[in-house]
């Protein structure tokens, strides 16, 4: 069963409705005992890095997640800040991330010689360039997705990058390391192409 992790952050019911329409069985849960039954996990997110980590801690989910994702290799998809907290740390806050990627979250403006055009937050529909069409980006076109963030995932290992976007700086917007996936944009709010990514994830063998 696919579980959508409900830690008070992000649109769990949007994911739920999409999977329901796709006839993919799924459940919403914040209960660590129940989540142990998961065969797939979605980690949604809207908000700041520290806020997200605090909520994960509130629900005492850190050990459960580490166990499911690292030991049992359950596929997980992190969305927006749900992807960012998979890194070690962020310039946005002081909390320690889940640390599944040896990466840091950086502010978009610091690495760019920003023209005044590149105002923050990076808000709206931006195009992506797909580098790896396997797995979750199977059959996805280089099209527009909805972004809402000021910080980006600074990948250390280029092999982890599935797709890039550009906003003053080129940055990873879809990543994968073994069973761990992340997207910076909001697939649940990106219409057909976004729904297709969620379907691909749910159908991963």
């Amino acid at each position, binding site marked *: 069963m696919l579980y959508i992790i409900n830690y*008070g*952050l*992000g*649109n*769990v*019911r*949007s994911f*739920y*409705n*999409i999977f329901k329409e796709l006839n993919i069985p799924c459940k919403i849960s914040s209960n660590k005992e129940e989540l142990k039954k998961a065969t797939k996990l979605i980690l949604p997110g*809207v*908000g*700041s*890095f520290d*806020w997200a980590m605090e909520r994960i801690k509130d629900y005492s989910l850190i050990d459960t997640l580490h166990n499911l994702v690292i030991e049992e290799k359950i596929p997980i998809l992190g969305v927006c*800040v749900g992807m960012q907290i998979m890194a070690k740390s962020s310039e*946005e806050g002081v909390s320690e991330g889940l640390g599944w990627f040896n990466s840091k979250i950086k502010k978009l403006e610091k690495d760019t010689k920003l*023209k*005044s*055009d*590149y*105002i*923050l*937050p*990076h*808000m*709206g*529909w*931006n*195009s992506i360039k797909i580098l790896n069409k396997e797995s979750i980006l199977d059959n996805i076109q280089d099209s*527009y997705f*909805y972004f*809402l*963030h*000021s910080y980006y995932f600074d990948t250390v290992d280029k092999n982890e990058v599935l797709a890039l976007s*550009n*906003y003053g700086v080129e940055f990873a917007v879809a990543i994968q390391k073994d069973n761990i996936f992340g997207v910076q944009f*909001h697939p*649940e*709010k990106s*219409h*057909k192409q*976004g*729904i297709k990514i969620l379907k691909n994830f749910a159908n991963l063998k």
Partner: protein
Amino acid sequence: MLRPRIIPSLLINEGALVKTINFANEKYLGDPLNTVRIFNEKEVDELIISDISATTNKSEPNYQLISDIASECRMPICYGGGIKNISHIEKIISLGVEKVALSSAAINNPELIRDASNILGSQSIVVVLDMKKSGIFKNKFRIYTHRGKKLFKENPINLIKKIQELGAGELVINSIDKDGTRTGYDHELISYVKEHIKIPLTIIGGCDNKYDMKSAIEKFGLLGLGAGSLFVLKGKYRAVLIQYLNTKEKNFIFSSINLI
């Protein structure tokens, strides 16, 4: 390349969808959830939903309705109306809304913006300013609250600067003079505020068609293009029709500027 966002702006009064002219002459349109479903089909960029009864009635946000809308929406939403404190904001974000719009609460207590953006990040904190010309000669732009009835006396530019320093992630400027008139965006108002704004700016009020949208971004660059009447009403008798632009019309609007 980042595209300008084309955003239907929907008003809710006591749970029903309505449309106004100059913030008055309310017309009943129907059920908000049905409208959201239609906008899903049309692959809308984003929605702005404002509950205009909440602040004026001094009531809390209608969480059940917000939750229903958020879970139905396949596009991002910005919700505003009746939000007074951090716990309201946290609750709304937890219901699955991407962006929370603050208006009178932020105008009267700008520190709320700092607290909210510290916790949730700037990207989720939007400030909406309702503006129109006022004074004896109707020659000075001013900010109003409570559906255009209450004048905020301070200089709008000072407030606009303060809002950004405190961490707002987007400004929505609503032209009361242009609301529902379908006579084009208020270029004078946009010129007045634009140079002071270093965060995403969305404009609402007066848009009648794709030409209005095109001319606004030709003149002012990347803007969020909000519209009410255009997406919910048709013809001089203002018949209710939920509609959106198709890809061809969107490309026409974007064709005149260099996307970044």
